[in-house]
């Protein structure tokens, strides 16, 4: 058993799913002989051929629309969108069709499409190779939204996504594709959705994060020990379904919460977490719910390191929250 990166874990999960089930196939731009611009599909074209690793024309409308048709017919397509920033030409197919097929057909047509896409900043990608718009999808009934932060989760949650009977948006934290590594045990199976992971236990403040924000959040939680603060870090892993029980349980214990994401703050996913706490943990809360997020601007290029939440900003918010009230 060796250390694996996140992108390798994605690759392995795809390979295993394709080996196990001939109905699983991949489609997207440059995923074939090129192996994907991040190499997530490396080697799969060679192993499974052009019928199952389909290089498509440059059209996200076409990728998602045809994936839906395949799923209706009974296959299990896994579509790659090259960057999350380029999902919008296919947005109509996602919000009007994919997420509504089961519902509008009274259950006749489930639609199990997985959409994999690298998201987030930190790679000097500027406005169009950095965005995190998970909130658009989390607000849309009818699709699950998954964001792994470790190789084991990338592998296990992707296996679950491919087996899931419903649409899944699988967001891959490209910034830590290769920088975070870890073990994925041989024979590791699917990891169920809806279970947050306690990365680090603590008693004073609950910190909620996901995806590429886990490493800086973890560093911040380490750091605040020096300030005499015991922070609990929760990796949400799946935003839909959200493990509300774990969120509430943690805040019932600590009475304080800091929410971290890289997307802009206004109407971001953190707003929902804060709202859940303001509604259902209100009498446990002892301090304002803080949000450490990207700012409400498009994603900048030259100054991205100032835009993205980092350990220092998160640490400051944890300490302020611990001391408030």
């Amino acid at each position, binding site marked *: 058993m060796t250390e694996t990166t996140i992108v390798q874990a994605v690759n392995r999960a795809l390979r295993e799913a394709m080996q196990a089930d001939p109905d699983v*196939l991949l489609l997207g731009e440059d995923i074939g002989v090129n192996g994907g611009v991040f190499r997530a599909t490396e080697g799969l074209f060679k192993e499974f051929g052009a*019928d199952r690793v*389909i290089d*498509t*024309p440059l*059209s996200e*409308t*076409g990728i*998602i*629309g*045809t*994936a*839906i*048709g*395949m*799923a*209706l*017919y*009974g*296959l299990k*397509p896994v579509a790659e969108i090259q960057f999350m920033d380029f999902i919008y*030409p296919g947005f*109509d*197919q996602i919000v*009007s*069709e994919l997420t*509504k*097929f*089961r*519902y*509008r*057909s*009274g*259950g*006749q*047509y*489930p639609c199990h499409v997985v959409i994999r896409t690298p998201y987030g900043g930190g790679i000097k990608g500027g406005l169009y190779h950095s965005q995190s718009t998970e909130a658009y999808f989390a607000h849309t*009934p*009818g699709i*699950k939204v998954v964001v792994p932060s470790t190789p084991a989760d990338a592998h296990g949650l992707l296996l679950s996504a491919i087996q*899931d*009977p*419903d649409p899944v948006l699988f967001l891959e934290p490209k910034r830590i594709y290769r920088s975070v590594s870890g073990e994925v045990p041989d024979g590791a199976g699917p990891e169920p959705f*809806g279970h947050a992971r306690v990365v680090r236990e603590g008693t004073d403040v609950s910190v909620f994060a996901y995806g590429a924000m886990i490493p800086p959040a973890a560093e911040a939680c380490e750091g605040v020990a020096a300030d005499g603060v015991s922070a609990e870090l929760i990796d949400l892993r799946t935003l*839909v*379904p*959200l*493990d*509300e*029980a774990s969120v509430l349980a943690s805040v019932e214990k600590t009475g304080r919460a800091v929410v971290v994401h890289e997307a802009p703050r206004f109407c971001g996913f953190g707003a929902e977490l804060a709202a859940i706490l303001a509604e259902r943990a209100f009498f446990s809360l002892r301090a304002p719910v803080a949000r450490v997020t990207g700012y409400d601007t498009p994603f900048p290029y030259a100054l991205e390191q100032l835009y993205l939440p980092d350990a220092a900003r998160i640490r400051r918010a944890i300490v302020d929250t611990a001391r408030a009230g």
Partner: protein
Amino acid sequence: MADAAAPAPPTPEATPSDLAVDDELAIYRVMLLARTFDERALALQRQGRIGFYAPAVGQEAAQVACAWALESGDWLFPSYRELGVALVRGTTPEELFDQFLGNAADRLHGRQMPNHYGFRDRNFVVASSPIGTQVTQAVGAAMAAVRRKDRVVTVAFFGDGATSSNDFHAGLNFAGVFRTPTIFFCQNNGWAISLPRERQTASKTLADKAAAYGVPGLVVDGNDVHAVFRAVRDARARAVAGEGPTLLEAQVYRLGPHSTSDDPRRYRSEGEVDVWRQRDPIGRLRHELIEAGHWSEADDAKLLEEVRGEVAEAIRRSEAKPPSPPASFFDDVLATPPPSLEAERREFERLLAEGVVKP
């Protein structure tokens, strides 16, 4: 007023038929049933008994003959106007009214507006409102069928307006590249609500657009059941033989309003409509059948009475059914609802029990 929207009149000579007389008579019956159904549905909407309706009046030949040329294993991706196709596939008027009313028998559980039905067991995929989205889906299903080695075709049904959609472009392009067994069946009925065909696009015909994707394209007189049948049958044969997709433009005319929300007098002349009324596909086929001695005015009167009775009985039965159960709108979002939705359902059921919310 854009009289120019009218495609060139169809050639007056009858196309020699590939259809047996029995088929012709059966097609005629479905067309008459469709027309009768449409008339009654429009009336029901005016009476406030259904909420909305979009009739297929004028498009019966194209729809019924197209469906006739297909096999039951073929997958159909309809728009909201494919009444004739649904009827050929064995959908009953009662099932349609159940959907329009969203009653307890509606397979969609009251989720959709009238016209947006679907029946999985008939390979008649549930329609949606956004224009064109079914086109790429049909292509994807065809790719899946090839992978499964099923010798079937998929058919995307759409209008002239839909040729401007993103999905038309992507769907035709993918079909051309992957040579999918897909028939793109475009009913050019002259109008997209108030926009006449010639302001929808400057291409000479809609079929001409096929070349942009390396796909064969063909114009067919949509009021001629024989021509439509042959074109679809041939396209199907090519498709299952692995020769790829075809775009068919059936030139028809929307004799009625776009829907019950529409008043076509605002944007088109009665004169234009009159020209096309002369070409009514039902009158045309009736005339042909009578001329050929296969049908009589008396047969026709009897058939009309029969289909009227069938539709009336369907309405009576549908209207007698109970509504969808109140909390049913929470079902079918996902196979396993997320905690937030389960909490909302509990909240709803509490409000219902307490009488705050009234079904």
